[in-house]
Structures are given as structure tokens and as C-alpha cells.
């Protein structure tokens, strides 16, 4: 939890991170948010009710919001935390009831009195520090707007207690479970957000069905270049959540440190850098647990990375996490080509839909980790001719939207509804995947690519042999087309 003391944006928060003992990994680069109720798939901003520091003498929410129990449908008393009729926790069932339920129980016959009321600091989007766009250090993460500021509310009486239960507002015990409803306090890793600069953000979420978030996210900015890295831990191998974060962080760090040293127009150099980053990520996944080589199922993960410049976009990958290029005008493209059984089936002529429905569709054929074979990332470069969005994601998203035009429609719809802040957009896409089923962990990273205007002439003169033909048209390279580049030896 180094970030708590090193992150200058955090100085007005309690020095003791309320949930620091709930496990998860060190996650030095990311900030967590816990304000979304996982069961409901709601974005954090949807869960925020009215000011909840109200004293007991104040009534519950507005009159028209008569909360009903989501289990049995009976009306619940104002301020009641549990349904009088069936005993179900009120907050776990309806969003409208959530705000009422967190006020101290006013009804004398409410089954639980309000010993916990004093520590119920409501997530308040307005008070959370929002220094995201000003963080100059690419490695520094920011606090997402809307992330909770635990115990920062005016009624908070103690800064040492853990955050209240996300399901019922009760006190969370040291064992990580609520003392009232038994809900597990979200692990820090369950929902992470990053926004190192205004134009780039990402969200990694545990989803609905999985008990642990094994996806990892690492974003960075170096000068005019933006770096997106998404890793998806292999769920059948224990500790893959540790490996995926180690790999993502390592890859991001190599890319951020390296991009400024090479020509921003040199696709070959960027590709080599991506291959190098993947090797470092593999080493980090390998080293993430002490005994990786001794294990039958050593921790392992996928990698999807994108290096986004003003007029060049290079993606590198192993496994089935993806990078899409979604231009404002023109056809959307899936830049990566999954290393998976499904992709092999498609290569053999099967339709995308049929291949992705096949039983082994999610079996990946290449990955990072101690038992990985060739860890040389495949890369592909494009030279966008206009503005657009670069999306890196895990299969938790593309399971529900795979084809590029479908993904583009999804993003367009989100842009129309929530605007163009990449963090808000990422949250929206994650919420959409959760609502669609959320069977797997969901990770979404978005970067806005805006070429300098007016668009510069294509630098055909100094192009490498393999980036010949750089035109405003997005060009898809077949896998291995960059093989002519000398690949650095593995570290």
C-alpha cells in the first residue's frame, strides 16, 4: 500500500487505509473504489444517495421514494435496514432503498438499532479529490471522481474503523465480513480504476460471477505517448491474480520508460519495445510467486498492450485479451488476433459466432508465466488518420461484444449517454458487461487518440520497410508481418 503515502493526492485521506487488511495485492499503482454494489452492476455514481450524515431525528429520503423489499415486495419502514416481512437486507435489493436504509433507524421496531450509524460516511462524488488530469508522473495514479472518501463525511467519528459494509451499512469485522449481514467486504482488487491523464483511463472489475478479480490493468503516459496494458490471469492456475498484476505493471513500466527513447514514428522500434515489455512481463509473472517453476499450475496470464502516439498505434499481445481501434470515422478494427482455440477455428474458416461458442473457445494457446512456451508478443501497427478511441480489454468485455463494429456501436452508445470522459466511459462499459452477465472479470482501458491538427502528411519518406504504405486507411497486418525486425534476445 505504498501508494497511500507516496501519492500526493491522498494526503487528505486517513493515513490508515480502511480496508488494507482485506488482502488483495499491493497494487501500488492503482486506487480502489468500493462504492458500486457488485450485485447490482451499478456504476459508483448511481449508488450515491442524498447526504447521509443526517442525524437520527431526521427522516429518511423523499416521500415519493417508498422503499419496498426487493425479496418479498413488502414496503419497508423508513430507515429500516431489514425487511420487516421477510428479514432481507433492504439495501441489497433496491437502489432507492439504499439511501433510506443508511440513515439511522427511526422506526422503533426496526430490528437493528443504529450502532453503526456514526461510521456511515456516504460516498460523496463531490468531496473526493479529483486530481486525475494533473498527475504528471505516468506511474502515479489518481483518485477517481466518485471513489469513496472513507470516514471523510462530517459525521464520521472514527477514522480507524474499516469502511461500512457495502451491502447493509453495518460494521465490517476484522475477518473481512459484515457483522450484520455477513457480506464479504470487497477486496481492494475487486474494483480498480486508473486515470493517469485526462484522455486515458481504465477500470478492472471482478464481475458478477467470479469471487476474485484476476484481471489487471496498468496505464501510463510518457510525453505524447499513452500506454495501455491489460492482463487476464488464468483462473485455473492459483495466484494468477498476483501474476497478472505483476505482468501488467512490468510491461507498462518498460513501455513508459522506453517510448521516449525511440522515434515516435518508428513502428518497428515500438514493436520491439512491446516484445521486450512482454518478456519483462513474463519474467515478472514468473517471479510473482516464489515457487512458480515447482508448481503444476504456475500462475499465468494474458497480455494486451497498446502504445498510442499521435499518429501511430502499435499493439502487442499474447493470449485472448484484445486491443481495438475505434475511429470516429471509418471502420472499427480489432488489432489483435487471439491466441486461442477459437481464433484457430476462425482461421480454419469457422464464423466468429460459432467459433466463440465452441467448448474450448476460451482455451488460450499462448500466455505468460512459468509454463509458457514462446512468449514473444505478436505485434501490429497502424497509422490512424483521424481521431478515435483505443480500447484494450479482457474477454470479460468482448464475451458480450466481440466483432469490431459491435464494439464500436457499444462505445458510440456510451459516448452518447455518458459523455467522453474515458473513466466514465470505462465504468459504463464495465457496468454494461456486468449487466450482460458478468461471468468473468471485466477490464476496460480507453485512450483518446487525437492526431495533431492539421493532420501531418504521412511520413512515408522515413518509413521503415515494414511501415510502407502508411495512409489514412487503417491497415491490418497479418500476424508475424513484423518478423523481419530483429527481435531482442529474451532478458
Amino acid at each position, binding site marked *: 500500500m505504498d501508494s497511500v503515502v507516496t501519492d500526493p493526492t491522498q494526503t487528505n485521506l486517513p493515513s490508515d487505509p480502511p480496508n488494507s487488511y482485506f488482502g488483495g495485492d499491493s497494487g501500488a499503482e492503482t486506487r480502489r473504489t468500493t462504492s458500486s454494489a457488485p450485485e447490482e452492476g451499478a456504476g459508483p455514481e448511481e449508488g450515491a444517495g442524498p447526504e447521509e450524515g443526517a442525524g437520527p431525528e431526521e427522516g429518511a429520503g423523499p416521500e415519493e421514494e417508498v422503499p419496498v423489499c426487493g425479496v418479498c415486495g413488502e414496503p419497508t419502514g423508513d430507515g429500516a435496514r431489514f425487511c420487516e416481512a421477510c428479514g432481507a437486507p433492504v439495501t441489497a435489493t433496491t437502489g432507492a432503498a439504499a439511501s433510506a436504509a443508511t440513515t439511522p433507524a427511526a422506526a422503533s421496531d426496526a430490528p*437493528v438499532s443504529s450502532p453503526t450509524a456514526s461510521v456511515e460516511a456516504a460516498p460523496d462524488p463531490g468531496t473526493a479529490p479529483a486530481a486525475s488530469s494533473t498527475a504528471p508522473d505516468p506511474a502515479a495514479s489518481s483518485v477517481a471522481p466518485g471513489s469513496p472518501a472513507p470516514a471523510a463525511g462530517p459525521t464520521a467519528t472514527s477514522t480507524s474503523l474499516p469502511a461500512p459494509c457495502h451491502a447493509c451499512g453495518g460494521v465490517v469485522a476484522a475477518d473481512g465480513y459484515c457483522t450484520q449481514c455477513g457480506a464479504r467486504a470487497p477486496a481492494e482488487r475487486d474494483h480498480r480504476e486508473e486515470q493517469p491523464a485526462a484522455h486515458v483511463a481504465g477500470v478492472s472489475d471482478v464481475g458478477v460471477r467470479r469471487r476474485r478479480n484476476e484481471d489487471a490493468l496498468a496505464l501510463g503516459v510518457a510525453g505524447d505517448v499513452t500506454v495501455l496494458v491489460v492482463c487476464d490471469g488464468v483462473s485455473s492456475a492459483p495466484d494468477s491474480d498476483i501474476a497478472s498484476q505483476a505482468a501488467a505493471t512490468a510491461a507498462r513500466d518498460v513501455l513508459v520508460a522506453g517510448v521516449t527513447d525511440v522515434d515516435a514514428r518508428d513502428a518497428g522500434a515500438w514493436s520491439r519495445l512491446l516484445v521486450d515489455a512482454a518478456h519483462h512481463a513474463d519474467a515478472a509473472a514468473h517471479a510473482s510467486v516464489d515457487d512458480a517453476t515447482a508448481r503444476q499450475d504456475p500462475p499465468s496470464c494474458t497480455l494486451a498492450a497498446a502504445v498510442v502516439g499521435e499518429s501511430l498505434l502499435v499493439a502487442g499481445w499474447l493470449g485472448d485479451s484484445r486491443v481495438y481501434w475505434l475511429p470516429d470515422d471509418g471502420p472499427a478494427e480489432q488489432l489483435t488476433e487471439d491466441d486461442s482455440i477459437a481464433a484457430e477455428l476462425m482461421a480454419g474458416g469457422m464464423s466468429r459466432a460459432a467459433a466463440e461458442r465452441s467448448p474450448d473457445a476460451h482455451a488460450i494457446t499462448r500466455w505468460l508465466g512459468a509454463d509458457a512456451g514462446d512468449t514473444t508478443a505478436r505485434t501490429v501497427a497502424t497509422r490512424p488518420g483521424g481521431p478515435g478511441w483505443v480500447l484494450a480489454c479482457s474477454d470479460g468485455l468482448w464475451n458480450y461484444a466481440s466483432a469490431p463494429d459491435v464494439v464500436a456501436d457499444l462505445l458510440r452508445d456510451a459516448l452518447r449517454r455518458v459523455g467522453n470522459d474515458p473513466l466514465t466511459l470505462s465504468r459504463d462499459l464495465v457496468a454494461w458487461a456486468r449487466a450482460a452477465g458478468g461471468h468473468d472479470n471485466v477490464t476496460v482501458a480507453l485512450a483518446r487518440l487525437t492526431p495533431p491538427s492539421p493532420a501531418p502528411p504521412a511520413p512515408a519518406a522515413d518509413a521503415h520497410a515494414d511501415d510502407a504504405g502508411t495512409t489514412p486507411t487503417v491497415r491490418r497486418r497479418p500476424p508475424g508481418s513484423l518478423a523481419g525486425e530483429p527481435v531482442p534476445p529474451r532478458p
Partner: protein
Amino acid sequence: MATFRAEVFQNEFLPDGGTDVHAIVTVTAEGVGGAATAGGGVAEIVMIDTSGSMTGPMLAAAKHAAQVALDHIPDGTWFAIVSGSHVAQRVFPYPNAPVAIVQMEPAARAEAKRAVSRLGAQGGTAMSTWLRLADQIFATVPAATQRHAILLTDGKNESEPRDQLTSTIRAVTGRFQCDARGVGERWQVDELREIATALLGSVELIADPADIADDFRSLLATSLSRGVADAQLRVWTPQGGQVLFVRQVAPTVEDLTARRTAVTPLIGGYPTGAWAAESRDYHVAVRVPSKTLGSEQLAARVQVAVGDEVVASGLVKAAWSDDASLTARISPEVAHYTGQAELASVIQEGLAAKAAGDEATATVKLGRAVQLAAETGNEEATSKLRRVVEIDDEEHGTVRLKRGASRLDEMALDTASTKTSRVRR
């Protein structure tokens, strides 16, 4: 310094719509010194049946056993001897003594032995009076926090209605622990089991009066090894959840469900009595509202509290999954003790049916018992069952009632029915 630890064995995965969570919680106490180290004092009372039926070798054996017991009560321990018939009388300290209980020292030991040697047998049997007197005696030494009694009888509680015994047991429950021993074949297993169960003790048959002394010796050794005077099992369930049952399942089956006292609205406390360095298993079953697939919650916290301090805690979880390979699995520990608890009840039900002349029911129940004893590897139960039924097919539980099975064999089976074999791990 005594330390406790709690280990939970369960399959936390529930199918969609599943609500019932079962777990075996093994509680182990270590580093427990003897009772003398427990702080507070130790008090022992021996209750000897001196009703008319004891006349003869039985009384002689009982008196000898009481004297042996006196030799094994260490100096400094509070002690008293009670003789019981249709009334109870304090034998030592003598009825005219100014105090009801004294601390052991050589002179007191010699005088107590003399008092025991003068016991004669006459009158009926009303055990409630014995228990009441013991309770009154214990009450005079509040400093003695660890209170243990031994009750020895040879006969039926014939001088009072059963509900009088029951109400007295209820009145003294929680005031002291009591092991109950029946000698010979004329006592009622269910009466002594009621006493021992409520007072957190054991019930045993002593077939041969010559064995009473050895039994007393081992009872005292066990009692005096208990360095933790009292521990409470606590079960927290979430709001909206309920405890289905809480059962001790090893070393014996004891249903604790009805013994719940509220610690908080969500936490129930169950008495477990004094602890030596030992391990006990509990089967906790709770019902929680079903949640969506993929969610996980705590279904119970099972804790051990000594005084007001929680000294061990185990977490029982519930996780809803659509993966049948996860949800279909039954925890081997839960399966084992579910079988052992059923074994205890079918033995008792089978013997009760046999006593009532319902041989068909007795055959079915004891057949099931044979099957369960074999499945769960309870060899003691199997060997005792063999003395009561002819086993035609152990696997299928096909048995015939043994003609001429002795009452002693049936009582031995009955008293041992609650003893469980530990799960093989």
C-alpha cells in the same frame, strides 16, 4: 496458558437457490494446565445411592469406590460426600458440621473415609433431592468456579414423578457439571442420560460393581485435568439467517440447539463446560437467504469464548455457484458426523421400540444402525450391536433381533450410542 483454535470443515458452495450451510468445527484446546491452575477453586461432590436396593455387595463396592475417590482428590480441593435415597443427606462434612463443604487435607480425608464406611442402605430413590443438595452445597463456595459431581445409582428413580427430576435438572443446569454412573441392570439409561446431558457430563454403565472404583478414579482424573473452568461456543448468524442446529458430534453426540442463550440478537451462546487439553467437534447448520450466483457471504462465525473473551474463531461461508462439480460435493466431515448422529438416534429409537414390544420397528432401526456403524467405521457400536442383533448383511443393514439378548447388553449399547468415532482425516 490455555489456547484454543477452531478449524472449519465444509463445502461452502451452494447451488442456485441453496440456503442450508453445514460445517464441522473442530475446537482444540492446548496448553491447558490442571484444574488447580484454573484460578478460582475446584469443588468435587460424590453422590452415592444408598437406597434399599444397594444393600449387599453393591453398597460395599460403592463405599470402597468413594474411599478410593477420596484418595484421588488432591489436598486443597473443596469436597463433600452425599448419600441419596428418597431423601439426600450430607455424609461428609457431617450433617451437624458448621460448613457444608471443606478443603481436602489428610485429616479430612481420614474422617471422610470413616463417614463413608458407616453408610447403610435403606429407602427409595429420588435423585432430584440429591441434585438439589449438591447444588446447595456448591453454592456455599462461590470461589470454587469449577464444580464437578459424580452421581452413582443402581436403580430407577422410583420415589418421585419424572417431571420432578426434569424440573430439578433444569433448575441446576449451568450450576455444576455431573457425570452419571449406573451400576447393575436395574437403572434407567434415559434418566441418567437426561442428568448427564443437561449437566455436561457423561453417562456410563458399570456392569460389575468391582469396576466402580476404577471408574471414579478416571472420572476424577479427567475432571482435575480441566484447566479451563468454562467455555462457551458462540455462533453468529447474519441478519435474516437462522441456526438449524448446533450439535457436539465428538467425542459424543450432544444436541446443543435448545441450550442457546442470546449473547447479542445475532449471536447465540451454547455451554460446553470445562475443558482439558482436548479436541471436540461441533456440527453447525445454518440457513441463510439464497443469493445470486457468484456471491459469497459469511454464513456463521463459530467462536469459543472463555468468560467474555473470544479465544478462537472459525468462519463458515456460503458461496453460490452454478458449477455442479463444486456444489454437489459433500464435505466428508459433515457426512461422517451426520451419519454418527443418525446412528445415535436409531440405536436409541430401536432399543425403545424393542422395549415397547415393537419388534418390526426395532429390527429396521437397529438394522440401519448396523449399516451406519459400518459406514462410519464405528467399531465400538458395531461390536455392541452384535450382542443385540444377528447381522445377516452389514452393508444393507439386514438384521434379526437376537433372542435372549441380555438387558445389560442392551443398556451397554444404549449408553454407548452417543459415542462417536472421529472422522478419518
